[in-house]
């Protein structure tokens, strides 16, 4: 056997498939322990130099996109294809073929005295086991009667493997063509979706609070527009209820606070803008920056820190930090509309409002993955709960040799003994 044949034989073996599955499972353990997809400095700061170098050089920081993980998944796909999926003809042959005596379990032999009504007797024998269609064949001078039930169960393993293959390929395709972006804004704003022709018009955003102050649901009323400002779709989206348009899905993902900012120098307005929580307003010319650190709707200061008592804006306060030439020069809380003074600069944070944050995704291959999963589930039910059953009777001389596969032997023996009695009485 040539080396190529040996390799192919190895690749399509179940042993190799199990080995690959175990390897992928083992690598996943590392993927669950080591934080995935962080910035490189994170690993340097978190681990010792040797470990961080090991993690980065082996790509353990992004294991599921590493060449070896993808390579092993591809090999598993090839193994699935060769190992079981291409064996469909074997399954069909098994279903259609005459059962082989060597493979069937011998159950009993029945000696008969005369052959009157023998066929009826044999049919009755099958019928009592629930076999309706009895096929008769002549094989090497013997008469063979056989019937099969639940043959669809043979497809179980095949369906599972096809389903897994379809899921892996669809997932891989989805990862390869994946599009992801985000948009955020306050009600009344229009935001372009980067990398697409779409613009999202945020009509309204609201949060339903329960009596205990917990969030019931987040709602964004949005319109989807194209580059000609034509309406493509509109919907009030909420968590678990996205808007779908041509494969693009818009998800309610997060929320936060925004504020209007007025930046003045020598009492003249320099600029007015919208500032989101956690972001900076930077005046590069003046070297001055202000960070809108956090918003407290119902502010309270305690020894333990700064808190909000509720979501109601009973005592609204902004926490801000001022920077001059990269150096922090101030940090404090301020009420909306109050002036933050620093040298000749006046800054006003006012009109706090909530913004909505939407995730935009387009993942291809979902249908394939769904179909694959469905096949796996159907396959599992077929493999575990639809057990193929075969019954065969061989007439040789004045004996009926009964064979079966999947029949409960004890039950069948009782049944056959009973049948023999009936048969003997009848004759």
């Amino acid at each position: 056997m040539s080396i190529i044949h040996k390799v192919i034989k190895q690749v399509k073996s179940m042993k190799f498939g199990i080995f690959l599955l175990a390897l992928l499972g083992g690598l996943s353990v590392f993927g669950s322990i080591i934080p995935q997809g962080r910035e490189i400095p994170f690993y340097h700061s978190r681990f010792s130099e040797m470990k961080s170098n090991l993690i980065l050089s082996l790509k353990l920081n992004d294991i599921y996109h590493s060449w070896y993980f993808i390579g092993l998944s591809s090999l598993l796909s090839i193994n699935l294809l060769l190992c079981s999926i291409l064996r469909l003809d074997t399954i069909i042959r098994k279903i259609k073929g005459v059962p082989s005596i060597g493979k069937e379990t011998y159950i009993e032999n029945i000696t008969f005295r005369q052959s009157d009504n023998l066929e009826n007797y044999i049919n009755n024998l099958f019928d009592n086991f629930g076999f309706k269609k009895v096929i008769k064949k002549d094989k090497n001078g013997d008469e063979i009667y056989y019937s099969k039930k639940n043959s669809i169960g043979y497809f179980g393993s095949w369906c599972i493997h096809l389903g897994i293959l379809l899921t892996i390929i669809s997932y891989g395709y989805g990862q390869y063509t994946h599009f992801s972006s985000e948009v955020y804004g306050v009600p009344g704003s229009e935001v372009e979706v980067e990398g697409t022709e779409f613009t999202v018009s945020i009509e309204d955003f609201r949060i339903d609070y329960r009596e205990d102050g917990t969030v019931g649901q987040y709602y964004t009323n949005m319109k989807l527009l194209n580059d000609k400002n034509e309406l493509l779709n509109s919907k009030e989206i909420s968590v678990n209820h996205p808007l779908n348009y041509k494969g693009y899905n818009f998800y309610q993902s997060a929320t936060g606070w925004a504020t209007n900012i007025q930046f003045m120098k020598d009492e003249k307005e320099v600029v007015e803008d919208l500032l989101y929580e956690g972001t900076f307003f930077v005046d590069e010319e003046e070297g001055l920056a202000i960070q809108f650190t956090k918003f407290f709707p119902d502010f309270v200061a305690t020894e333990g820190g700064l808190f909000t008592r509720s979501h109601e804006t009973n005592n609204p306060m902004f926490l801000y930090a001022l920077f001059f030439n990269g150096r922090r020069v101030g940090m404090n809380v301020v009420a909306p509309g109050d002036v933050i003074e620093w040298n000749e600069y006046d800054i006003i944070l006012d009109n706090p409002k909530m913004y909505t944050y939407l995730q935009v995704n387009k993942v291809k291959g979902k249908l394939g993955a769904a179909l694959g999963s469905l096949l796996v589930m159907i396959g599992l039910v077929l493999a575990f709960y639809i057990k193929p059953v075969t019954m065969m009777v061989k007439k040789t001389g004045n004996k009926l040799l009964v064979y079966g596969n999947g029949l409960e032997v004890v039950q069948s023996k009782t049944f056959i003994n009973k049948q023999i009695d009936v048969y003997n009485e009848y004759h």
Partner: protein
Amino acid sequence: MLIENQSFNITLLLYCIAMVCYFVFFMLRKEKLADYGSLMIKIGLVFHTISLTSRTVEAARLPLSNQYEFATSFAWGIAICYFEFERRYKFKVLGTFVTPLLLIVIFYAAMQSRDIRPLMPALQSNWILIHVSTAIFSYGAFAIACGISMMYLLRDKFKQDTFITKNMPSLQMLDTISYRAIALGFVMLTVVIVSGAIWADKAWGRYWQWDPKETWSFITWVIYAIYLHVRISKGWKDKKTAWFAIIGFVSILFTYVGVNTILSGYHSYAMLLWNML
């Protein structure tokens, strides 16, 4: 809340008594105690069901959404699976091996907060019903398989012990029952993973993100998939498959408890684990 708490406490007590009965039955070989143990489990199951039902009524939803609710439902799933397997296969000694697993899960539930909280927006989906309810039965079936596999190992070790040979089925039978429990658990686990993926897609737009919970469900699925393959193709029906079933259940427990407590705090314990390597 009062009915729920009282029923839960009675359940806990009855399951404890059941475990003691089964333990004494096994150690002192007093067969009558196994009957008491079985009775305690059945009465406990009734109170457990009352506890879950009253919580369902009070919360106006199925109790499937936080650590306490899932743990108590998980324990209920084990008890139901035990009840069915004991009824079907009629061997008393199974309780000796399953009740400790049942106790571990229900004690974990007892340590969690029992406050009824409304569902956060991400959990407001009908998929939670399929996802979590199938997980309960899947985990329950795997717990039974784990108990039976422990019996298998013991039966194998003490082949000559008359008490064990009398009260435990043959090794072949134990292997078959364990296989059936794993087959049921595996089908259910697949439904858990698929329904979770559909739900994740509805909520976040990605059906598979390799987050620790997903990853450990995948690892558990792989363990049982290997078990099924080697059992069918290699004919492993011995101690090796019994160990597989036990390791699989450890993985189940880690997926449920470990991922939430260890891996969710990426910056703490997981790092410790990594640094120990």
